[in-house]
């Protein structure tokens, strides 16, 4: 039965993807992207990837929709002229597709417990998470500690994206801090009663959910990145309701930059602390007398760092785009 569910979702996904590429109106394409992203997230859940499903929904349906819409409201939503060299492109694509499909011959059977993926490195994680960290969520254990260096890299990828957008959008002809934006740009949805009441009611709950996801990440699906995205989404909701300027009053730009840099520094500092206490970089077991406690403490701290950076970067990017509307 679940097989049928999977096939149904994937087929819908393919149909949506074709529609996205064919859509002339970019706004429509972005809406369909949201649907595609939810379909992918649902497929991930069917494949037992709860954390990834959560991230994909927060990123694909939430953050990326907001970003694309902000960009579209500055640029334009119509796509002119269709495509260049469609036939050559189609040929290249078909050739590549054949290679990909060829590559799936002779692969291990889907879901085979004997496949290398399940028999080589993974069982070690599944077995040792309990022993070394005593936390239920293995994804968090691998993400935070066993492969914590990758996650450090991930935080800096987010940071560099934030730096990049701030850098790009703090120059050029559209940047003019002296000029005040037109009145409609700063009003938000303030004059619409129902969205405002419903939205304001929900903001505290969204923040609460964000904090829950942040600190519950060791026990259930979630963690710093998802929490950061959700908290950022709550602030963005506030900005949509009350106008971007008012959101900036709550969390001014320097605070956001402090958040993004501070989170990255916190993560790095935990790693360096590992060196100072006599271990290797990102070795959390030396952080407390008991190595299990040390691991838990380390993961908690770095997840907090991830959450801070992600919140800071997403909000900075949102405000940078919003400031360009005029």
């Amino acid at each position, binding site marked *: 039965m679940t097989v049928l569910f999977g096939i149904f979702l994937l087929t819908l996904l393919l149909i949506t993807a074709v529609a996205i590429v064919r859509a002339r109106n970019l706004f429509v394409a972005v809406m369909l992207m949201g649907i595609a992203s*939810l379909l992918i997230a649902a497929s991930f859940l069917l494949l037992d990837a709860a954390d990834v499903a959560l991230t994909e929904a927060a990123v694909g349906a939430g953050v990326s929709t907001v970003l694309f819409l902000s960009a579209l409201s500055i640029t334009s*939503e119509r796509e002119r002229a269709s495509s260049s060299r469609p036939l050559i492109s189609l040929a290249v694509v078909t050739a590549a597709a054949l290679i990909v499909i060829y590559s799936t011959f002779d692969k291990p059977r889907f879901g085979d417990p004997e496949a290398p993926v399940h028999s080589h490195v993974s069982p070690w994680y599944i077995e040792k998470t309990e022993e070394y960290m005593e936390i239920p969520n293995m994804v968090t254990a691998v993400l935070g500690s066993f492969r914590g260096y990758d996650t450090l890299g991930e935080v800096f990828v987010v940071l560099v994206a934030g730096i990049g957008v701030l850098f790009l959008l703090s120059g050029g002809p559209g940047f003019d801090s002296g000029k005040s934006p037109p009145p409609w740009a700063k009003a938000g949805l303030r004059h619409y009663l129902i969205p405002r009441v419903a939205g304001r009611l929900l903001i505290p709950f*969204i923040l609460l959910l964000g904090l829950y996801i942040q600190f*519950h990440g060791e026990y259930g699906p979630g963690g710093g990145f998802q929490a950061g995205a*959700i908290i950022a989404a709550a602030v963005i909701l506030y900005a949509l309701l009350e106008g971007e300027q008012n959101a900036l009053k709550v969390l001014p730009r320097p605070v956001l930059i402090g958040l993004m840099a501070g989170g990255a520094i916190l993560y790095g500092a935990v790693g360096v602390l590992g060196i100072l206490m006599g271990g290797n970089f990102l070795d959390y077991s030396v952080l407390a007398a008991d190595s299990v406690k040390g691991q838990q403490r380390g993961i908690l701290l770095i997840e907090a760092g991830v959450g801070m950076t992600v919140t800071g970067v997403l909000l900075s990017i949102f405000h940078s785009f919003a400031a360009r*509307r005029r």
Partner: protein
Amino acid sequence: MAEQRAEFMYYAVTLATLVTMGLAVVRAILGPTLYDRVLAMNMFGTKTVLLLAVVAFLFGRPDFLDLVLTYALINFIGVFAVLEFFRIRAARRQDSGEAGR
């Protein structure tokens, strides 16, 4: 017996939700107006929330309801982003219309 019946119900609900999702996708692709598509996307989000809730029980992992909650709230914010987009677009059209005159 009771468990089997519950599982049957879960499957039935999932199936019904999937069909509704399919219908929402059809509306989102066919349009014809932007508002149809926005509504379809919103409806699709709601159905995903339902689907995930049922699947969480079907898999015997009710702790995944956290996830469902997140989906619901994200979906809500998505709609607001779209509304704001429409508002700005309308305001800008008005602006440029006046400038053109």
